[in-house]
């Protein structure tokens, strides 16, 4: 059976509950994704800083 | 520690740990009474906060007494291993050449005795003041005796785990409370049945089953946690 877009959005009167469930899913998953990618980026930046400070320490000892 | 020279069996080593713990507990009797005092104070809060009407009190009494007992025995666990860590006793236990789980089990058992017995004895006082009928008191006391055992053994895992971390006053409760919620459910339910004059056997058997599980498994986790802390 085919439903109109308006019917689909109305969800038989349950629209607030259905759409806020799916909306909450989107928000939490986007936050999850941002958190994971942010953690990866931050970890890489930390590692790069470790390498750089290690390199400058070595340079300091040699000179 | 004279046990290091002549080989001792695990039971006698555990008995020594148990005896030492009891002696220390009796010496610090004021500290020992703190959980019971806290328990009696918490149960006094409810009539003040709600209303002293006997029928209402009788309905909420099982829950109030059990929540009070749960919180006060949890609070007593905070320092379970702290003093032993500071004075090196904990390290001696690890190096004693005995199964560490057996020794910590003896220690936790002693703590159960020191904290559980006063609570069980104080419970009738608190329950009667909440108009619990005298016929329900034996079930309440038996339930608390079993339930505090589970709380103390599971809580000891939390106490050992938080030993090496930064000191946070509520961290231990955060870890242990979700794990001991079944104790509260079974214990309060059994007491409630007894207050209503029904058979409370179901809840008590479940508490006993949980106690057996906790006494056999928790010392292994405590021993692992103590080793991690001292590594």
């Amino acid at each position, binding site marked *: *059976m085919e*439903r109109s877009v308006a019917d*689909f959005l109305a*969800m*038989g*009167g*349950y629209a607030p*509950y*259905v759409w806020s*469930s*799916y909306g*909450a*899913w989107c928000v*939490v*998953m986007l*936050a*999850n*994704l941002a*958190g*994971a*990618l942010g*953690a*990866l980026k*931050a*970890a*890489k930046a930390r*590692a*790069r800083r*470790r*390498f*750089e400070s290690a*390199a400058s320490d070595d340079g300091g000892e040699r000179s | 520690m004279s046990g290091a020279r002549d080989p001792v069996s695990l039971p006698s080593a555990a008995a020594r740990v148990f005896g030492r713990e009891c002696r220390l507990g009796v010496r610090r009797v004021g500290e020992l009474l703190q959980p019971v005092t806290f328990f009696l104070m918490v149960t006094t809060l409810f009539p003040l906060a709600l209303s002293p009407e006997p029928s209402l009190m009788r309905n909420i009494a099982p829950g109030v007494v059990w929540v009070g007992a749960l919180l006060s025995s949890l609070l007593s666990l905070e320092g379970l291993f702290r003093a032993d860590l500071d004075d090196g006793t904990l390290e001696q236990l690890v190096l004693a050449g005995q199964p560490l789980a057996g020794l910590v089990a003896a220690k936790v058992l002693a703590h159960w005795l020191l904290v559980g017995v006063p609570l069980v004895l104080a419970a009738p006082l608190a329950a009667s003041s909440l108009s619990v009928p005298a016929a329900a008191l034996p079930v309440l006391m038996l339930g608390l005796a079993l339930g505090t055992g589970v709380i103390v053994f*599971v809580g000891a*895992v*939390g106490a050992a*785990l*938080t030993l*090496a*971390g930064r000191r*946070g006053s509520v*961290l231990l409760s*955060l*870890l242990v*409370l*979700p*794990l001991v*919620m*079944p104790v509260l*459910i*079974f214990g309060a339910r059994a007491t409630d049945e007894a207050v209503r004059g029904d058979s409370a056997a179901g809840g008590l058997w*479940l508490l006993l089953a*949980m106690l057996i*599980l906790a006494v056999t*498994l*928790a010392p292994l*986790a405590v021993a*692992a*946690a103590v080793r*991690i*802390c001292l590594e």
Partner: protein
Amino acid sequence: MATWTWFHRLASPPHVYRISGAFLPWLALFTALFIGYGFYGGLVLAPPDYQQKDAFRIIYVHAPSAWLSMLAYVTVAVAAAVGLIWRMKVAHAVAASAAPIGASFTFLALLTGSLWGKPMWGTWWTWDARLTSELILLFLYLGYLALRGAFDDRARADQASAVLAIVGVVNIPIIHFSVVWWNSLHQGSTVMKLARPSMPGSMLWPLLSSLLGFTLLFAALLCVRLRAEIIDRERTASWLRPIVGAA
């Protein structure tokens, strides 16, 4: 012996870093496909439920979230046990990465359960056995994360939280049983009737697809977080140099 080489290679951080990166695009692709079909099928193709009408469509978010909340906890506990027994650093990294993701799915399961409960029960929160268990599970996650945060030393945090995760996973069946027992005595009838044993295919297939899609999504998020954990744990290992772009 050869069958165990894959297991031993899992102990090698560079190897795990590499394969998690290789899996990621495929996981992302299939996550999108399965969740896409699951949600489309659930929201559009499936007919309204004869009792719950369109409100039942929340199940396509709620049930997979609840499933993931448990799968993630078991993942944490199994990884923690492997880490403790074989002293495998990568396993501890898996446990550390899975916990926050699992907590977020637990939160979602609670939230969507509540959003479903409002039209069905007329209240945002009911002490229903499933919702209560899910709430206690969230407490377990929060305790685990709090314990992890209480240590400055990473190795200790790994081992202590591993013990807690194992104790927790032993307790979960007991907690669940006690909550069901408590609930049956107090309320009896308000069991969450979201899933029925005999669901027509048009409702069931999107649900299964959604379950699979969420699982893959968890795996994908886990891979990303795991890579971050591995970089942090490897400190200045030389294999990291080209990856982080250091000279």
